[in-house]
């Protein structure tokens, strides 16, 4: 344990939120979405944020991506302050947002086109990513010919195609059935272990968060605050069956406990 602390202490911070507060102003009064929140995600770390619906976890992700400004406080990506949309992050939303008129491979290459870098090297990387998630054969198909799980895999490939150091995922598997979700959880772990990207993963799935993460940040709602950070100290690669182990139950139990105490879960 001591060794692990020492080991992680020299990992530089990648995503840094300091006293981040966000208030939405509306006709019916101000809504405090985030209240002076501090969060530090180290380089190469996989951190999940769980919390009840409307706790501001999606707002947090949008602020980190520079898609929404904070009301006060600051966000730093690799030391640089976030002021507008950040280019070197990959984003995956709950809806895959694939473009219907583009084939799978052309969807994956969309970020490359916007960056004016659709080179043979990038195209090769796109094909390799599709191969990794088992979608090489459907590269020339259109999104509507694919299942929900396949579509979300394409969205992940699209987020990764420019090889960004940071991956932001907002309930990416929330709309999938339980089995497909398991499958994609395992695939995401594999991808993450190979690339060691810094991942901020928003979810309301406690089990999913514990399975994937190094640390799980538990948030409360109205205003969004961090209640507790739960370390998941289970060696990787984690088989899906790890979810039946005592260590895993301890982590998820703790998360549930914190949520229950805050009133997010009753009973």
């Amino acid at each position: 344990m001591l060794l692990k602390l020492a080991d992680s202490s020299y990992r530089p911070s990648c995503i840094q939120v300091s006293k981040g507060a966000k208030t939405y102003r509306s006709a019916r009064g101000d809504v405090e979405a985030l209240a002076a929140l501090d969060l530090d995600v180290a380089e190469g770390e996989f951190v999940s944020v769980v919390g009840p619906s409307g706790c501001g976890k999606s707002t947090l992700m949008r602020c980190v991506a520079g898609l929404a400004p904070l009301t006060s406080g600051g966000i730093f990506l690799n030391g640089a302050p976030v002021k507008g949309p950040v280019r070197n992050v990959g984003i995956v939303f709950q809806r895959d947002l694939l473009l219907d008129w583009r084939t799978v491979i052309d969807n994956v290459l969309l970020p490359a086109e916007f960056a004016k870098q659709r080179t043979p090297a990038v195209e090769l990387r796109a094909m390799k990513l599709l191969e990794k998630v088992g979608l090489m054969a459907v590269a020339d198909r259109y999104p509507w010919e694919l299942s929900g799980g396949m579509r979300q895999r394409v969205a992940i490939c699209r987020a990764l195609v420019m090889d960004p150091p940071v991956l932001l995922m907002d309930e990416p598997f929330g709309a999938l059935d339980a089995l497909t979700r398991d499958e994609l959880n395992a695939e995401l772990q594999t991808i993450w272990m190979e690339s060691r990207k810094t991942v901020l993963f928003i979810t309301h799935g406690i089990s999913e968060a514990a399975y994937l993460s190094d640390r799980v940040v538990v948030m409360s709602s109205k205003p969004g605050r961090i209640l507790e950070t739960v370390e998941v100290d289970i060696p990787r690669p984690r088989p899906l069956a790890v979810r039946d182990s005592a260590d895993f139950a301890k982590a998820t139990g703790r998360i549930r406990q914190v949520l229950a105490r805050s009133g997010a879960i009753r009973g």
Partner: protein
Amino acid sequence: MSMGVLTSLWNRLLSSRVLIVSTLVGLVLWQAAVRTLNVPKFLVPAPTDVLQEFLSNQAWYWNHAYYTLSATLLGFAIAVVFGVILAIVIISSRWVEQTIYAGLVAFNSIPKVAIAPLFIIWVGTGFASKVTMAAVISIFAIVINAVLGLRSLDPDLVDLARSMGAGREGLLIKIQFPNALPGLFSGMKVGISLALIGTIVGEFVASSSGLGYVIMTAQSTFATPRIFAALVLLALMGTILFFVIDVLERLILPWHVSNRQEAAGHA
């Protein structure tokens, strides 16, 4: 792909057998009614009278039909080009939207037939006035549908594109415009029929050519079979023009929801 479209057209022709049979039955009943009731030719001619009239002046009819068709197509093409440009201008700024768009709506509420004489004064009694009427009448449907299509953009998709570094122009070309194509096509389907109406209105007001002119001159001499022959040609022309747009839509938008079923059968 084109094979698939041809096959689907063939299937649709087969499924229109009911239509063909009922049309034939209707023609036979019409013929029988006119003959047994001894209806004078100048009131309602029998189908055979109409056919005879057409066959005896075939080249003359084709010439006038060609005149009407070219004015319609040219006017329609102008309406599409300017309609799309106008739509892009309209969505580009709130100020322009409030002025141009409001002006367009006001303009559209004037019955276009009423302003036809004005165009005769401005562009003369020749071909140009028919083209102008066709364009003026059909442009509104195209602008409205293009504006709706360009506006119906998923806000998450805009965020995603922004995080990919998309500028306004890139967003327009790669996402907004393709996204608006289905709307544009429904506008074009309405527009092509309107363009034909515009041309005929132009020919009614002042002309020495075209099917509208044929109808006007025939009316003054009670040459009713001639009116019917021109009407049949107009009906055929309108149907074929609509059909052509429909086929174009299937070819250009194989990914769109309305075209998927059939395309999937040939995938």
